[in-house]
Every structure is written in C-alpha cells, then in structure tokens.
C-alpha cells in the first residue's frame, strides 16, 4: 500500500482520537453528574422513547454495514455503480436517522416542554436534576447529529467522486478514511443509546436500586 494511503489512514485514526477526547469531555461530565444525581437521571431517561432510540441504533448500524460494503465494492474492483449504490444507501440511512431524531424525538420533546433553555417546564420529581439530564441529552445527541451532518456532506463528495469514476481497486483510500469517520460516529451512538435511553430501566416505575 502506498505511503499516502498509509499516512491518510494513520491521520484519520489520530483525528478519531481527538474526537474521542472531544466527546470524551461530554461523556466525562455525564459520568460525574450521573454518579451524583442518579435518581434524577433515571427519571429523565424514562421520559425518552426507547423505541426511537433502538430504531435509530439499528438504522445507524445498517449504515455502517452499507459503508463497509461501499469500500468493499471499490476494493474488489466492482463497477462504480456498485460503489454509488452503497454510498447512497448509507446516506439514506443517515438521513433517516436524523429525520427520526429531529421530527419524532426532538420535536416531541419540545412540545412536551423538555428542552432546557426553550421553555423547559417539568413538574415531576427531581426537577432540577431532570433538567440537567435533558441538557446532556440535547448536548450529546446534538453534537452527534452535527457530526452526522458533516458525515453526510463527506458522503456527498464521495458519491460525486465515485460518479466520476475516481475509485478503483488501487485507489479507494478516501472511501476507507471516510468510512473510519462514519463508523466512529456510529460507535458514539452505540454508547449514547444505553447511556441516555436505558438508565432508568423500563421495568415497573417506582422500582429502585
């Protein structure tokens, strides 16, 4: 493999380490506040809709598969239409994720007055801590969504490049390097799902630890 390909790969992994630390700051704060305000976080978590979180997780996992298949198509020297097919499928799944999140989850939360800074009005138990939980929910999923949008932009560029026949079995490293980024965004969600949606448990309400 040529030097630019190796360098590009290494460069992307190093960039992903910076992303680990970037999200890591948020995850660290989350860990601390969850440790200090567990019941409030559990209460807040139960106000989220698990089915959307789970569905979105499946959607994103699917998009990782299609991304891997797009790279595979290039490596195996398939026709460019194969590569474009998988790239577009990845973009559709990514857009589906964002669509579900913004229209069903966030919009719903806004109507329920659960968005801090935008008319937050929760009157149940542990109200201050629940507001803190929702700060984390929106900051973390928002930052994740931002990264997804950037990813969609990158995928668009890749699709255009593929349409112009730029990729081959010898030259596919932009796909590979972008794939690393896309998988990373998937991994962040893999952690966000249980940490945000599954804290409180969905067994009978009132049951505690």
């Amino acid at each position, binding site marked *: 493999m040529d*030097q630019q390909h190796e360098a590009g790969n290494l460069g992307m992994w190093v960039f992903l380490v910076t992303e680990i630390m970037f999200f890591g*700051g948020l995850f660290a704060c989350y860990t601390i506040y969850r440790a200090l305000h567990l019941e409030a976080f559990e209460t807040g978590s139960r106000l989220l809709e698990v089915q959307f979180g789970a569905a979105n997780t499946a959607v994103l996992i699917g998009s990782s598969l299609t991304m891997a298949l797009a790279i595979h198509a290039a490596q195996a020297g398939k026709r460019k239409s194969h590569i474009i097919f998988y790239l577009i499928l990845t973009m559709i799944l990514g857009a589906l994720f964002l669509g579900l999140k913004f229209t069903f989850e966030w919009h719903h939360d806004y109507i329920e007055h659960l968005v801090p800074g935008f008319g937050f009005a929760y009157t149940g138990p542990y109200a*201050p801590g629940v507001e803190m939980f929702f*700060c*984390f929910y929106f*900051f973390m999923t928002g930052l994740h969504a931002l990264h997804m949008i950037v990813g969609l932009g990158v995928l668009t560029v890749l699709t255009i490049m593929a349409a112009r026949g730029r990729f081959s079995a010898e030259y596919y490293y932009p796909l590979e390097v972008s794939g690393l980024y896309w998988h990373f965004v998937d991994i962040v969600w893999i952690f966000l799902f249980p940490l945000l949606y599954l804290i409180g448990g969905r067994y009978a309400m009132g049951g505690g630890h």
Partner: protein
Amino acid sequence: MSTAVADIPHGTPAESSRVNYLNANYGIRSWLLTTDHKRIALLYLASITLMFFVGGAFAVLMRLHLIEPQGALVEPDTYNKLFTMHGVIMIFFFLIPSIPATLGNFLVPMMIGARDLAFPRLNLLSWYIYIVGSIFTLYAAITGGLDTGWTFYTPYSSTYSHTQVVPVALGVFITGFSSILTGLNFVVTIHKMRAPGLTWFRLPLFIWAMYATSIIFILGTPVIAITIFLLGLERLLHIGIFDPAIGGDPILFQHLFWFYSHPAVYIMILPGMGVMSELVTCFSRKRIFGYSFVAFSSMAIAVISFLVWGHHMFVTGQSIYAGLIFSALSFLVAIPSAIKVFNWTATLYKGSISYQAPMLYALGFIGLFTMGGLTGLFLASLATDVHLNGTYFIVAHFHYIMVGGAVMAYLGGIHFWWPKITGRLYPDGWARFAALIIFVGFNLTFFPQFMLGYLGMPRRYAVYPAEFQVLNVMSSAGASILGVGYLIPLIYLIWSMRYGPVAGPNPWKAKGLEWETSSPPPTENFEEIPVVTEEAYDYANPNLGVPRV
C-alpha cells in the same frame, strides 16, 4: 574558542539568487495558496509576531497602570480586561503556536529528510483557521474586551460577566483546531516520512520534542474545545451543565479547563526544550549528553503533564484527597524537566563554547527555566500553595518559564535558523546586545514579582497597598527595558532580510539534515532524499555540514 561574525562562512551572491522556496513563485496568491511548509511557516511567523506585539501592548498598559498603588492609568473594570486579553492572546495566539507553527513547520520535514509534511493542504488550512480565530479575538478586543481572566471561570463567565465572552471563546475554540491539525500532521509525518536510515534514536531531539508536543495537541486540545463549547452554550441558553440551579458544579468547568490548560503549558515549553538541545550541542561543538534520557523525558513530560491539573485548584474547594494525589503527581512531573537541564549542563561541560546570540538565549534559558521550575515546586506543595495561590508569586513563576524559558528559546531558535530560513545573516553584535537587554529587562520585571507574591500582593488586582509600590515600580521599569529589548530583533531581523550578508548553507557548521541543503532551501528541500548513516549531533566527526547542494 569563540567565533566572531567575520569567521562565519558567508555564501556567495550567486547562492542567494539561485532558485529557492522564497523566489520560486511571486505574487500574493502564491503565498496565500501555498502548500509549501516553509512558506506556511513564514505566514505563521508574521501572524504570531503581530499577536505577540498586541499581547505585549496590553502588558505595557498593565505595567504603566501599576506604577501607582491606586492605579495610574485605567478604571478597575478596564484593568480586568487588560490582563484577560493579555493572557488570552499571549497563551492561545502566541505561545501555543509559536515554535511548533513556525520552526516546527519549517524544520520537521527538513530534519527528517522529507520534502514536505504528510498533509500539506491541512497545514495551510490550519493557518487559515488560526487567522479566523485571531480575527474573532481581535474583534472582541476592540468591541469591549473580556474581563473573566484567560481562565474563563464559571459562573462569572457563563452568567455574570457583561463582556465579550462568546467572541473570545469562539476565537479560542476555532484556533484550537489549528493546533490539532498541526499536531496530527507532525505525528503522521514523523512516523511515516523519515529518510532511509533515520531511525528513531538518530532523530534530532527537536523532532522528539515536536512529537511529544503533538501528543499533547492531539489529546488535550479537544477537551478545551468541548469545554469552551459548553461554556458558550450556557452563556447563550442561560442554562447549562455548570449551573448550580440544576445541580451543576462550577468546579467541573475548572477540571475540564485545566485538563487541557496544564498540558498546554508543556506545549509551550517542550518545543523550547527541543530548540535547546539543538543550540547547546552546536555551540559547545559536542554531542548531547544522555540522548535517550532527553528523548524519553520529552515523552514522560507529555504523559505526566496530563496527571497534574488539579494543582491549579487546590484552593477552589476541591477535595483534599484529590489535592493530595495531584500534589504528589506534580512533584513527579518536575523530574523529567530536571533531567533535561542536567543533560544540557553536562553537554556544556568541557565543550568548546562560543557565545553567539543563539547560545546567549540558550544559556539564559537554562538559568531562568530552572528558577521558574523550582518555584513551581513551592506551588506543587499543597500547604505553601495555600499561601501563594492568587498572588504575584504565581505570575512570576509562570513568566519565568514562559518568557524566561519559552520565549528565549523561541528567539534563540529564530536566530539560529534565520540564515537557513532567509538565506541572510543577521548582525550578531546587535543580536547579543538585544539578548542581554532582554535578560536584564526580564529579571528586573519579574524577580520583584516573586517578592511581591510572597509578601501577599494578589494578582489580577487593579490597586494594591502602598507598601508594595517600590517593587511594582521596579517591575514596570524592567518591563520598559524588556519591551525595548524585543523591538531590537524585530528591527534588525527585518533589516537583514534585505541587507544582511548572504549566508552559506551551514554558517554555524551545525549537524543536521537541514544544514545539508542550501540557504534558503529549494522548494523541494533536497535535490535527492538523503540517506542517514550517522548518529545525531556527531560533532566529533570531521565531516561537518558538507552541503549536498
């Protein structure tokens, strides 16, 4: 034996007119759209020099104000803005990029025998990102400034300050990505693009220092990015995770802030230490004493620097048990720095020392950095820190390291590599004079501040008790001398670009791949990629600096 200017090999006029990276293309577009690491280094040099003098101007105003106990110049609110903007600009826009973005960008590919960095376009992007960040910060400076201190502590910064928190925070946030890209570029370049025969333990120690600094760039900067981001959100939304009303902890902001900002001070000093290894060896005509100790201590500093941040928070209400851990680790981090000082000193021992300007800066560094470092131990100790925290002792401590250390190393490096970068020699007589002025001015400015701090004068205060006036006046007098000292190199270095004698490929007869090509180098650095067969700093070898061009 000392070498006077006349003995330094000059280049012939023909050498200065040969095609090199400076004259290969003309026009502003060839500069603003360049991907040549050497030109990008010069773009950075111009930008950070500008920011240095802007930050310096704030310092001048502060020292003028502090001539009188009740303040001689400005209102207290304005004074708060002066020290804040001085800190923000000097730290984020001068010190952190200084050596890595100028000398690092210029020298890393050359020292490893490469034609450019791994990602030349990312390199250009990082400069543009730096410029955008600077514009936001300068805009904030002229539209009201910031008064939170460069440390942005909550809840003052998130809730109560009425100044330009968001523009400055945005400027710092954006510029952070410039650092990250530089660090990423260096790491990949050093791993993947070394010349044949250049094993890790043959690398110049400057490269080890750049590598260690890049580790800190990569692992630390993203954390301050997210912290500033969260601060901005809290300020804009009036709700956030540092807000006690919803169970938030303002001290958590400090944890996140210092997780980066402590390693950041090692970002500021490690490159200077790298420069030191190059200067001390060349001007003692000796190989470095304890090469692997110096190399490993750079890595050790990079790692341990991440474990000590709580020593900035001993008096904030942090748990005393955490304080104990951080205090012990802070003592530990002093050890690799001390190891380096011992190795440089041992290199000097029985060396053939000459006292050109770069060496004067290097010798100044050894003394002043040691003082700064030792005073850090007073602050690492929990009990004494309770007395000294928030006083001028801290101000003196970090200025000894940042100015007496990092800036002097930076100036030494700029002088040392100036012939390589510009193809011209600067007037060494003026340079030595300026180095002495800077040394005297620096000590007169900051040594009284140790005494002021010990006696109890708080930092960041616009007024002070009358009994501290004498020391304050001494400090301000020193600052005026220091200011003059910094202006002198600005003048003669710019002068030398046009009127200085033409330099040959290796005026210092130094070892290193960068000296084996012409001055200034051609755009592609080397006509042929060199093959390395000897150890670093092999000054005993008579084959000195034989140019390959």
